[in-house]
């Protein structure tokens, strides 16, 4: 079935089963591979994207439910890779293997869009569903604090 999706501001017409999770539409149909598969059951946060500005797990979103909505992926977060969260991530040196980081960055960007200067508790709450096997949590926290200074 043909479905129209708006991703990173561009229109995409994809021919898929409407139940297909957005994650696989992005990765395998459209070729936006920055959004990652980690668990497929809403438990790791690697697949986090924004839907109308809110963080959401792409492995749980059916493609058909996104018609008429704005989807933003890591590739569309900023034009030049210089969203304050990305800048802060580079300054602090957050990523290790990097695999979870698209999801971490999207969750952090959504948090800062809601709360300019989050407390440690607010950071932990907003980020606790984004897992990192490499253990970059302390640097993620530092990155969010730095991004808050840079101003989202």
């Amino acid at each position, binding site marked *: 079935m043909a479905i129209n999706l708006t991703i990173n501001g561009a229109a995409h017409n994809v021919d898929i089963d409407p139940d297909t999770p957005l994650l696989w539409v992005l990765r395998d149909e459209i070729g936006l591979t920055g959004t990652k598969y980690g668990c497929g059951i809403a438990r790791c946060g690697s697949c986090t994207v924004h839907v109308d500005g809110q963080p959401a797990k792409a492995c749980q979103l059916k493609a058909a439910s996104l018609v008429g909505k704005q989807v933003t992926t890591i590739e569309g977060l900023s034009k030049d890779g210089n969203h304050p969260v990305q800048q802060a991530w580079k300054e602090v040196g957050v990523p290790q293997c990097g*695999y979870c980081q698209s999801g971490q960055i999207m969750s952090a960007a959504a948090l800062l869009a809601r709360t300019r200067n989050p407390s440690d508790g607010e950071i932990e709450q907003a980020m606790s569903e984004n897992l990192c096997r490499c*253990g970059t949590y302390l640097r993620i926290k530092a990155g969010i604090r730095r991004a808050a200074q840079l101003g989202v």
Partner: protein
Amino acid sequence: MNAVNLSRRFFVQASLAASGGLMLGFHMPTAEAAVTEAKPWNTPVTGIEVNAWLVLDPDGTVTIRIPHTEMGQGGMTSVALLIAEELDVEWSKVKAVFADPNRHLRNNKEYKVMSTHGSQLVALQHPHLMQAGASARERLKEAAAQAWGVTRDKVEAKQGVLKSGSKSAPYAEFAAAAAKVTLDKEPAIKEDASQWWLLGTGTQRLDIPNKVNGSAQYAIDTRLPGMVYAAVKASPVPWGKLKSFNADAIKDQPGFIAVVELRAVEGKRGQPDMQDAVAVVATSWYKAKNALNMLPVEWDFGDSVTASSKGMSENAKKVLGEKGLISKEDPKALEVIAASKKVVTADYERPFETHLRMEPINATAHVQDDRVDVWSPSQDQSAAVLIVAEQLGRDPKDVYAHPVFLGGGFGGNGGGGTAVTRQAAEISKRLKRPVKVLWTREEDVAQDKQRPMAAARMTASIGEKGLPEAIFTRALWYTQDKQNQIGPATADYGIRNMPYNIPLRHHERHNLDTHIPSSTHRGPGANQTGFITEVFADEMALAGGWNPLDWRIEMTKELPDWQLVLKTLKEKSNYRTDLPKGEGMGIAAVECHGTIAAACATVSVTRRGQLRVEKIVIVADCGHVINPHAAKEQMEGAACYELGHAWVGGLDIREGRIVNTNMDTYNILRMDQMPDIEAHFALSGGKKWGGMGEPAGPPVPPAVANAIFAATGKRIRTTPFRQYDLTWV
């Protein structure tokens, strides 16, 4: 010193650098992918090759080819730093690309080592990497000297510029000539840290920009024209035999292409060996996975279906009462213990753990008549070539592995990677088209090669000064890997070589067979037996009335490096034993991969038993540190990784199968559980070069367990901690 003779290795034009098909078939992000920053592996390399590691471009760019994998440990940056230090070029001009594994094999291991494991990259490979930089520098100087009519010692090479008197030129100008220079003698490398201008300064990693915008390519991101997708399933009880399946039942499913049967090779159960499995191939992975779920499959589970964590644990208890293989014999130790008035004894156990790399197990292969291409998250890309060649019966020189970033490694992708690489090659061969094989997370956990389960019975007699006079240990280790995972290096590693000066020691071990696939895992042995030794050390110290930190300092009096680490920990940690109930500090120290790491953990436990790990101070002696930024990152990361296993992890085996196969049931540490980590170095220097990827992990769980005892009086002897009732009054 590794003298490298590079004279036979010149290539005149460096665009040849990309030879071996490194640029083939990569998917480029489409325009709406806002960021298309250059990727290390497909950026065309321009300039002139000086040696296999180095290409100099007239615009000043220095391209360094990285033979090792980047799996989050900073390996890409480490290699570039070691070479740039000796070459003496501006760091901002350095660009990293992955080296070509096919070239490495074709030219008789040209890069010496491509494998990336065992925390060895810097510790063991720094001599030849630094040599590659030093050698190029001297050749550049020699080429300039010849052109300028002076001797080489009159030419200076600094920050990319060659100079002699009034003459000067950028390195690139002499790159072609340098490639043809033969030196009488290879230059010495700068082993002494006081000579370094770049190493040791704390450098930002080269891979970071690609890892904040979605452009870093992992094996799972491979997309090829005409590619199809496969989802696979092996027997839920590992190594079960495939009896039958009914492909007809799913042939009308959307996108269905084929079912491919895969077979284990009898007797082969190593890291990259395949089990019996079925693969469903479809036009997208989502469709393949759905069709696989509907495929009727029958397995013969064999006897292993009766195995369980509980059963293995009960068996361990029984076996710990039986005599094992002797790894250090001392009958006197047994006599002294038997006659002693004061004996400490306890049993310990650690369950199986899984790697759970964030990138699930996958590989892509394209098998054609004239060449084979493969993308896999292997920690040794040259071994991936050999494994695929073996699987297909092809000449390795026609097999091209394309290095990619790894979404975690942790020892799970050692050797040529996992069985998935063979699966991808096999399926592509049969279907004659490119195929990406991706395991679901559930398959990844169920069929990964796990960290072996271990247990031990520890007994010591405490003598006059409250110090142990004799120790008798018996350890066991469940593993199926009969090649690499047996012997004193595993089951009683960390026990047998504990640093403590106990006069009489007797050690035994058992290697028990299991059907659970098992293999190397970050900090092999040191994690399991390091935990056991260090909790027991706490028990011995307290039984003798000692402060556990002072006990460790006393018991390692003759060992200067241990003294340095433990005394630094004492100074940095403010360790104390007089905290109010519900708060506690704990100490542990373990040596692995040539590095001693000691940790002091501070915890709080509420009356209702809720644990919080507040802070961990870690001190490490790895001799030298080339990049403090990355080394500290590894200390934080390893601590988090290990604390996750010890606190909330543990694989659960029932009816022969692993039952907690996704992140809702197999847990790792979350941000709100992560303690503050304070990482310090206490470097002994000299000839010591230890690893940093693993050593900071092992002391963390026992330090936390010991802190929990200090806080609550509850002694933890197995993991995960969360299974203990920690309430107190």
